[in-house]
């Protein structure tokens, strides 16, 4: 109960954590939910235990249910062509499906997701031959989807399409480097009600992100309503020569936002 009180008390929270939400679910129900979701994403295929191959790091109890940072790491990334991140009990469970191109580096993927109720979050790695490897973590957070729109979303709407790229250290040719792509976008999920008009703020979310480096694909991401306001994607790439990273973002209103970033690379 304490966290519920907390959200009400002062603080205008754009999120609400609650012991009540999702608390009736037990382990068996969660596994059944995951099995029910699989055909939609994987068809006939069933993910196998990811073991040491794929790992998911998420806060056990999120500070802000509308912004839950998660990190997927892949140990042996040679064969990995794609990653799925699924927030099982969200209304739109698939947070992101990422396919890596020749310039991509699947070893690490960082996302920020909304969490609507206590849920398992699954990360699934896909290999070139179509095999799937899964891992999961239980996250205690709730209300991240229906929390009202706030000043953050207003700022995001005003600057929609603005992007930043941050690099995690010096870029050395031929060496993987971690980058962080930030996109201003409210990612309205259609669940936030305007109490004056009794209308829901229309859904408008980032549908896809394409990142290329000197024309070679780094990754393609299919997004959905479970990504947080102002999506931030942490990813790896391997620059083979000096060049330019190009980002193309498409949203559900078919708006297209493009940005290019010069990558200051050092020869190796």
């Amino acid at each position: 109960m304490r966290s519920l009180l907390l959200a009400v008390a002062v603080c205008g929270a754009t999120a609400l954590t609650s012991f009540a939400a999702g608390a009736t679910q037990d382990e068996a129900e969660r596994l059944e939910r995951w099995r029910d979701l699989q055909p939609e994403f994987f068809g006939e295929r069933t993910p196998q235990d990811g073991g040491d191959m794929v790992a998911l790091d998420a806060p056990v109890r999120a500070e802000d249910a509308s912004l839950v940072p998660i990190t997927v790491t892949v140990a042996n990334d040679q064969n990995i062509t794609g990653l799925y991140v699924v927030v099982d009990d969200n209304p739109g469970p698939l947070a992101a499906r990422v396919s890596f191109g020749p310039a991509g580096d699947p070893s690490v993927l960082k996302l920020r997701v909304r969490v609507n109720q206590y849920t398992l979050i699954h990360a699934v790695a896909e290999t070139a031959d179509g095999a799937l490897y899964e891992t999961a973590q239980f996250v205690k957070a709730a209300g991240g989807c229906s929390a009202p729109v706030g000043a953050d979303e207003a700022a995001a709407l005003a600057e929609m399409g603005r992007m930043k790229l941050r690099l995690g250290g010096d870029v050395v040719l031929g060496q993987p480097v971690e980058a962080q792509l930030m996109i201003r976008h409210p990612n309205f999920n259609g669940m936030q009600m305007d109490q004056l008009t009794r209308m829901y703020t229309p859904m408008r979310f980032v549908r896809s992100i394409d990142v290329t480096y000197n024309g070679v694909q780094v990754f393609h991401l299919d997004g959905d309503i479970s990504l947080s306001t102002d999506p931030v994607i942490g990813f790896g790439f391997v620059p083979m020569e000096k060049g330019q990273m190009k980002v193309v973002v498409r949203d559900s209103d078919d708006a297209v936002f493009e940005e290019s970033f010069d990558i200051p690379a050092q020869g190796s």
Partner: protein
Amino acid sequence: MSVRPRLPARPGTIGRREALIGGLCLCCLPAALRAAPAGPIATVEVAPGLHVRRGLDQEATEENLGGIANIGFIVGRDSVLVTDPGGSLADGEALRAAISRTTDLPIRYVVLSHAHPDHIFGAGAFQQDSPEFVGHARLPQALARNGDYYRQRLEEILGPGRAGPVVMPTLTVDATAEIDLGGRVVAMTAHGIAHTDNDLSLVDRATGTLLPADLLFVGRVPSLDGSLKGWLKELGALKALPVTRAVPGHGPESVDWPAGSADLERYLGVLLAETRQAVADNIGIEAAIETVGASERGRWALYDDYAGRNVTKAYKELEWE
């Protein structure tokens, strides 16, 4: 008028202890007594004609009826202004009872300092007085956005029908305005995005008292729901005001001004500097929550309930610099 400076807290003790003391007092009341109509709440006259009820340093509970914010009233020659109506319908009714015990003058103005539930849900208790409900020009949209959400969450705590209605302002302020209570002018300022995007502060000129509501937290950990940089900016402007006393939105009934802003300014400054550094060092939000503001833990009641959220909020703001 006496000022109550807050003693420095010992790390890790004050929040829980204060919460426990307050909680026990109320919890130990027999259930029948708790359910009875609320009597007048105890207020302190911090300056002539300026009465303040100190909120508990707790979260809203069924026992405290959401009475966790500092609320009060100012009595002029002709009428009364309510400085915030309280955290629930019952909290507002108890404040109204305290006012009628003090004066027969009509309640002409009820200020809604910002959209947070602990300050405004008592407004329904004053509708019978047909006052002007006064708020920031951005308050209507904030209440439209969040009001019903707050009300539902509060009713989960207090019980169905016990939160109170969402009352919209009838008079909004987009820059500054003055209200005359009869020989007593209250000046109002609508602030830029700070604690929230709809903070309204008051100055009671007759007594040289600033009522910044939640632009000032003392003792209870601040909560950031607007803009960190904006809050520091607005706090700087408030410090320059020619007043000697302030009534925090949370904390003692009254503090010296501007000295009483020191703890808040230090906290916000630490949050700004350390979060900005975390962003520059490419430290992720999760790691930043663990490290930013460590020196502040133990200095504030309810610290662990809000610190992580504040870092998250600050990080989101500063990473777009």
